[in-house]
Structures are given as C-alpha cells and as structure tokens.
C-alpha cells in the first residue's frame, strides 16, 4: 500500500448576484419582492447610520468608531436569516445586524460615546454585548450552543468575527469543540481582508478561510460577502441545519473594509487607493439597487425616498442619544456583583 489518499476536500464558493446586479435565478433564494425591499432598506439604513457615526466622531460627539461600510450585505443578509429565538455573539463590526433587527439605534451610538449603560442589551434580543477582545466571544457562543443542545431548544447560535480572528487560539478551540459535539451554531467570518494594517496574506497562508473548517470536520463555505442573496441563502441553510441537529457551519463572507479600521486609523498608511477603488465597483448596496432597477422596482426617486427615511431614523436616534444624561459614579459599581463586597460598598459610599 503506497501513498494512498485517505481523504479529499472541496471548498466551494456561492455567488448569486453579480456586480452588474444580475442574479443567477437557479440559485436565487425564495424571497418576496417585499422581503427584498426590506433588505434594501436595511442596507441603506446601515450605510446611513455608518456615515453619520463617522461624522459624529469627527465632530467629537462620539468616540472612536469602527465603520462597517462595504460589509452591509454580509450583515443584513445574515440578520434576515435569523429567527427571534436565535442567539447572537457579535464582535464589534456587525451593527448592520442590529439595525436590521430593530435594535435601538441610539443605544448603538451611546456605546461609542463610551457609556457602560449601552452594553445592557434590551429584552427581546438574545444578543451578547459587543466584544472587543478579538475572537474571545467565539467559545462563549459555543458554550451557549452546548446549553441549547442540553436543553434541546429549537435555537441556533450565531457568532460573528473577522478574518484576523481566525488566527486566534480561541477561534480554533471553539471551532474544534463545536465539531466534536456537533453543536447548533453558525460561525460567520466577515473576511474584509484586513486586520487593521495586516492584509489577509499576512494573516494566514491558507488560500481561503472557508477551508479552515476542514480541520474541524464540518462544512465551511465561502460566499460573496457583497452579495446579499448569497449571504442570505448560505446563512438560512446553515441556521436551519443547526436548528435541526445538523451541526455547525462555517461561512466565510468575502468582502472588503471600505473605510479605515476605525476613526483612529489611517488606512492610507498601508493600502493603496487603487486597491480600495477596485472594490467600490463591488459595492453591495449599488449591486442591489441595480438588481431592483432591472426588475423595475428601483428608481433614483425611490432610492432617495429610502435615504430620506433612513436619515430621519438616524436623526431621531442622535437626538435620543444626546439627550441621555451622563452616568454617575454609582454606575461603576452597579452590576459588578449581585451583592457588592464590603470593600466595594465603602468605595461606593466614598464617591
């Protein structure tokens, strides 16, 4: 028996809507015109929110902020595939999910002002707070999925992270654990091809991120992350599979970070304008507009109606956010423990 082949693997890529806005009908997910329109609204809302947040930071009205521009499809497409009982363990760059699902917008902005209280996720959302320590939310999501399995709940767990996160030990340990116990979880990697200044090829030598799932014995698929239909169908399929006991799925959404890493970053130091420009043509919002236009459902007029609606929503959220009184020193202590320690009590009084 010579060098026998013991296993072969194929990594596949799903793409439905091309850059010209043409959809491959054979792969088109079953979405009504209204649902597609809601997708479009959510993407415009996300884009509008993001532009405003960057402006607010420049004006010093909020703190450092991580733009999502260019990644709207990956977020909106996934959000619309979720069911209300599913759990979400986000990183910090998928606010499009929150916006799509009706999360209080002023609270998203409040978080970026550096206000603890914005981390209290409102009832009705099974969301963890944003997680800044890259990849550390992933094992926590896997733990929730273990609890789901133990409780036999009809629930899927979803966690978001970036390409950089795939280099962390916690990503690996969590993926491996999910594979061993065939847990009801979907791993969504927004591969925006940058981790601050480190490009994908400096992050890993693997040709795709989807193939990393091979190491854990479950499916990994790459989708065009700027194609909201591809994201939606891959996410729907994976979430359904998770809820029906089919185990975990890893989805690589291949997209691009159009803006700086955060408002504190200057991407001009490490990447070329050409590089960025080449991705403008792939803009997920533009692409969906073209699709809708080809179906006679989008006009410049309709587009600006949606933009006006979105702007109104954000205006109102900004007002609410800025009406929030600053936190008091007591907030330092509240929620640290169910019952404060003697020392904490005395420190609290001293303030």
């Amino acid at each position: 028996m010579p060098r026998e082949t013991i296993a072969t693997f194929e990594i596949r890529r799903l793409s439905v809507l091309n850059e010209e806005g043409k959809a491959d009908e054979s792969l088109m997910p079953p979405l009504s015109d209204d649902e597609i329109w809601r997708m479009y609204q959510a993407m415009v809302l996300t884009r509008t929110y993001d532009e405003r947040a960057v402006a607010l930071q420049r004006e010093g009205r909020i703190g450092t902020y991580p733009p999502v521009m260019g990644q709207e499809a990956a977020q909106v497409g996934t959000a619309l595939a979720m069911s209300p009982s599913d759990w979400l363990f986000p990183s910090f760059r998928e606010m499009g999910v929150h916006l799509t699902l009706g999360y209080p917008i002023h609270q998203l902005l409040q978080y970026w002002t550096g206000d603890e209280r914005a981390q209290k996720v409102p009832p009705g959302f099974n969301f963890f707070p944003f997680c800044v320590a890259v990849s550390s939310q992933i094992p926590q999501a896997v733990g929730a999925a273990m609890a789901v399995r133990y409780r036999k709940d009809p629930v899927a767990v979803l966690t978001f992270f970036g390409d950089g996160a795939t280099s962390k030990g916690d990503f690996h340990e969590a993926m491996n654990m999910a594979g061993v116990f065939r847990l009801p979880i979907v791993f969504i990697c927004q591969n925006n091809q940058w981790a601050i200044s480190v490009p994908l090829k400096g992050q890993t030598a693997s040709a795709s991120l989807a193939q990393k799932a091979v190491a854990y014995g479950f499916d990994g698929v790459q989708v065009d992350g700027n194609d909201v239909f591809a994201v939606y169908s891959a996410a729907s399929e994976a979430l359904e599979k998770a809820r029906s006991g089919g185990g975990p799925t890893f989805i690589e959404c291949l997209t691009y970070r159009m803006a700086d890493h955060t408002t504190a970053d200057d991407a001009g130091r490490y990447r070329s304008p050409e590089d960025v420009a080449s991705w403008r043509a792939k803009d997920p919002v533009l692409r969906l507009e073209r699709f809708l236009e080809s179906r006679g459902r989008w006009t410049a007029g309709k587009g600006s109606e949606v933009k006006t609606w979105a702007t109104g929503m954000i205006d109102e959220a900004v007002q609410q956010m800025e009406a929030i009184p600053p936190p008091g020193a007591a907030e330092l202590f509240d929620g640290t423990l169910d019952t404060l320690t003697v020392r904490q009590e005395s420190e609290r009084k001293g303030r």
Partner: protein
Amino acid sequence: MAQLNMVQAINQALAQEMARDDRVVLLGEDVGRDGGVFRVTEGLQERFGPERVIDTPLSESAIMGCAVGMAAYGLRPVPEIQFMGFAYSAFEQLFAHAARLRSRSRGRFSCPLVVRTPYGGGIKAPELHEESTEALFCQAPGLKVVIPSGPYHAKGLLLASLRDPDPVLFLEPTRLYRMVKEEVPEGDYLVELGRARVARPGGAVTVIAWGSMLERVLKSVEGFDAEVIDLLTVNPIDFETVLNSVKKTGRVVVVHEAVKTCGLGAEIAATIAEEGILHLRGPILRVTAPDVPVPLAKLMDQYLPSSRQIQAALEEVLKY
C-alpha cells in the same frame, strides 16, 4: 454522619446539587469516563449522562469560554481545569470575561459558574501541577475565590458556590484530597462565602492561613497562644474577622504556599496596615514560599513554608 475525605466530600456535593438542580453541568478534561484524574467526579457521568458530565477536548480556554456562554444561557456550569497551572491558558476567559460579564452587560447577563481546579504543592507531580497563584485571581473584581481546608468545609463551601449568582473559582488543595477524613453531614448545608472562621482561639498572635497551610499552621502553633484564622474565602476576604482578632492580639503572621511578592499575604498585611495599624505591636510577618518558580518534587519541602519557619515567625513577633 459519615467520615469522608475531601475527594468524597466534593464528589458528594456535586452529586447532590446535580440531583437538586438540573442547571448544573460539569465539563472538563477526563471528568467523565475517567471520573477525573483525582477521581473527584467519579460515577457522575454514569449517573447523570455524558451531556451533563462532559468530557471535553484538551482546550482550557474553550472550556472556560464555553462555561461563560452556558452560564449566560441559564445553566450553572462547573468547568474543571485539570491542574491550576493550566488555568493560565484560560486566563483571559476567566479574568476578563467570566468575572466581568455581569458588569459589561450591566446585569442583562450573569455568570454563575464554579471553576474547580486542583491547587497547591506537595504531591510530587510534574511541573505546573503544583501552582498556588490564587492572588492572580483575587485581583479580578467580580470573581470570588474559595479554598477549603478540609472535607466538611469543602462540601458546604462548594454547595454555597454552586448557588452563588456570580462566578466562583474553587481551589482544591491536592495535598489534602485524601490526607484527612472528617465527619461530613449527609444532607444539604451551606458554608457562607466571604466568611472566615477562627480555627483555633488564642490571645497573643493572629495567624492567618487557608487551604493546605492551615493544617501545617495548626500543628506548628502548638504551645503558642495563637489564634488561627482560616480564611476559607480568599476573595473577598473577611477582614472583619481578621481585624477583630488583630485588635485582640496585636500581632500577625500570614502563612501561604505562594511566592512572597504579590502573594495574597500582601493584601492581608496591607489592609491590616491600613485599618488595624493602631492595634499592632510589631511587624506583620509573612511566611511564604520564596520568590522562585514552583520546583519539582525533590525541592518541594524546601519550597513550602515549614513548621520551623512558622514557629520562627511566631517567636519573632512575640518579641514585641
């Protein structure tokens, strides 16, 4: 009442709480089929099944991180780290996540988990199997740290930990696992967290210890008018009990297994120097391991505080 050693007492507490509360789930390396490398979880997988007593892959950080997610979902996970030295690779999940989840979610989520891990020196095991770095974890607001000194307290403290609404690091002194047997009530009882106990009353000097050093201290103080305090919970520390004793004795010796620098003795001495100094007659002495890495078996006796060192410290403070 039965005579149980600490392994049996902990096993009984786990079994009884699992029977009482189906939210309690165990996970870790070799905790199931094998019953744990010290047999602490023996028989629990047979009784409660592999989905409640979970043999995990070799992944300390994921074990801890999963426990955080399980707790947030509504379970009461009991992750085991096979030896305390391997908790270092789970440090981020314990220190920055488990301890902070209630705070960083402003109470939307809590993290009622109990991390169990064998702790301390004196069992002739390989490197990183005999660490006693409890002070690292006492610096995490939001995390309680509990260290029993015998079977009776082990059961009552563990039951209290399993019912605590916040995360608890439960450190099990391996040297004591099978050293002593005590009367351990069959039934349900709690030893309150955050309360120290006077293990031996006395008037001339206060000796503060916990875990496996308590036994050594109790042996060493014979013939001295020493009041021995067993902290039981090392975070938060019951300074009320400590300071009441210091008021009486005016002399203090702290004994612990860990290195001296930034060991827990530092916090105890500092708080006494802050709140009880006017009662002090002389220096607060710390009898600890030296500032060196935990050695292998052959040097362990020279590393751990000895009776001779404890007695020398007592004689020293009694000069004042």
